[in-house]
């Protein structure tokens, strides 16, 4: 089944982000990379130095560290209702970009700035997307 563009648009994205979500469905984490300077971006972007002339989606390592986070004590999304309290973290991925995600398989009190994490993938029945989520590196 293809990714529903309407879902992506409702989340503030557009067709330029489709390769990312198709990659996630295959179990691959992709980032948008400038071929001129090698800087990585997420989601689809124009390079702040070089514009859009040589941007391409490339595989990422799938590792990062927690840059900042919050613990939500109310379910603001239906998907999260069974998981309250849950953590929304902003990771600094190994390649540089920030990435919002959930930290899974980790007690809330174990989450801290600098925690090293690695990607895994979860199906989201509400959006129909496969979501990259992250768990602490063993």
């Amino acid at each position, binding site marked *: 089944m293809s990714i529903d563009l309407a879902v992506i648009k*409702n*989340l*503030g*994205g557009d067709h330029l982000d489709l390769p990312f979500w198709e990659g996630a469905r295959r179990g691959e984490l992709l980032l948008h990379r400038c071929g001129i300077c090698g800087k990585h971006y*997420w*989601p689809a972007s124009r390079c*702040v130095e070089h514009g859009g002339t040589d941007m391409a989606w490339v595989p990422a390592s799938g590792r990062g560290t927690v*840059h*900042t*986070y*919050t*613990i*939500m*004590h*109310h*379910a*603001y*999304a239906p*998907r*999260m209702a069974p*998981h309250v*309290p*849950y953590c*929304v973290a*902003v990771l*600094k991925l190994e390649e*540089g970009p*920030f990435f*919002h*995600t*959930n930290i899974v398989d980790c007690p809330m009190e174990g989450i801290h*700035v600098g925690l090293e994490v690695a990607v895994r993938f979860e199906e*989201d029945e509400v*959006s129909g*997307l496969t*979501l990259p*989520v992250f768990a602490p590196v063993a």
Partner: protein
Amino acid sequence: MRGRFAIAALGLTEQGIRLGRSDRDLRGDAVERALREAGLERDAIDGYIHCWGEREDLRYLGLSPNFSWALSCGGATPTAGILAAIGMIEAGQAEMVACVYGIAPTSGYIPGVPDLKSIGAHSYGYPSLYGMMGAASAHALHARRHMHLFGTTSEQLGAVAVTQRAYAAVRPGTTGYGKPITLADHQGSPMIVDPFRRLDCCRDTDGGVAILVCKADRARQLSPNPVYILGAGMGQNIANWHKGIPYDHHDNIAPAKARAFAQAGITLADVDMAQLYDPFTISVIMQLEAYGFAPEGHGGPFVAEGGNGPDGPIPTNTAGGQLSGFYATGFTPIIEAIVQLRGQAGAGQLKKADIALCSGHGLNAGVQNSWNHATLLLGNQP
């Protein structure tokens, strides 16, 4: 810039929870009050800037200006609206511009949003997939960084809540009037979006505001106490996003501050009060640092020692701000600056109230989490 333009009138409706009036009705009321204060007929308004976005105000308000704009950069919109008004006056397009705001979220009315239940995902984008919605979570990410970098504590956040509630407790018309709180109340309030407890968060209120912006000489004809625009500036935190440090900054305040103070020809020492945009307690701490009232990283101890209180070096949010007063977007700081500069704050009147620093902040995006920031310097002399 300094002193060439002024706010000739303020129209302020009741502000509170579940007023049972529509947003448009509140805007209409605010405009009527501003016209009455200035002694003007409605045809004097030849420019209308709606500081949000709705299209049918003019018919309902009985206005017929040369232009009507919807302007939207969140809580920075009121200052952006004042700047746009000045631009139109300078360009010879208008002489008396109304900048108007009014929402009634607790009565079911937000302009342009027929279904209040639908608003969450729209502005929070991809992070909403992970259950991140709402302004509290977006600001919590900055609060957590500040705690990590500088050791800021929940008790220090609580000091902001307690001090601002003390201001509101003696100010009729605020949500916190007659209801002081203690630090123990703050620490005992439930965790909502870590590290924010309920008392770290402002809540939505209903209300309308209108200000009339014109050239200073016209304002002097209309008002015994015009409030002068001394300087203004804006910044966008996307600059810090590109540098990889957006969460270490509440906003990109430096360029906004620099431009506003250069226009006004003043320094921080000339400022008598700070009226800061404060949806959450961390906002006060981080802005006091960014403006230079407290050294970087010392905003927590500064507020814990009462630095933002009535007898501190910089009285801040002297009617309780958004946290304990009411949430009228970026108008909350501007309203209190006008009240203080005119000497109309009653029991809460500051001894010295000649120059006010106001801030606004808004229109964040989901992933980039960057806001516009607005600095506005107001004075009771040109």
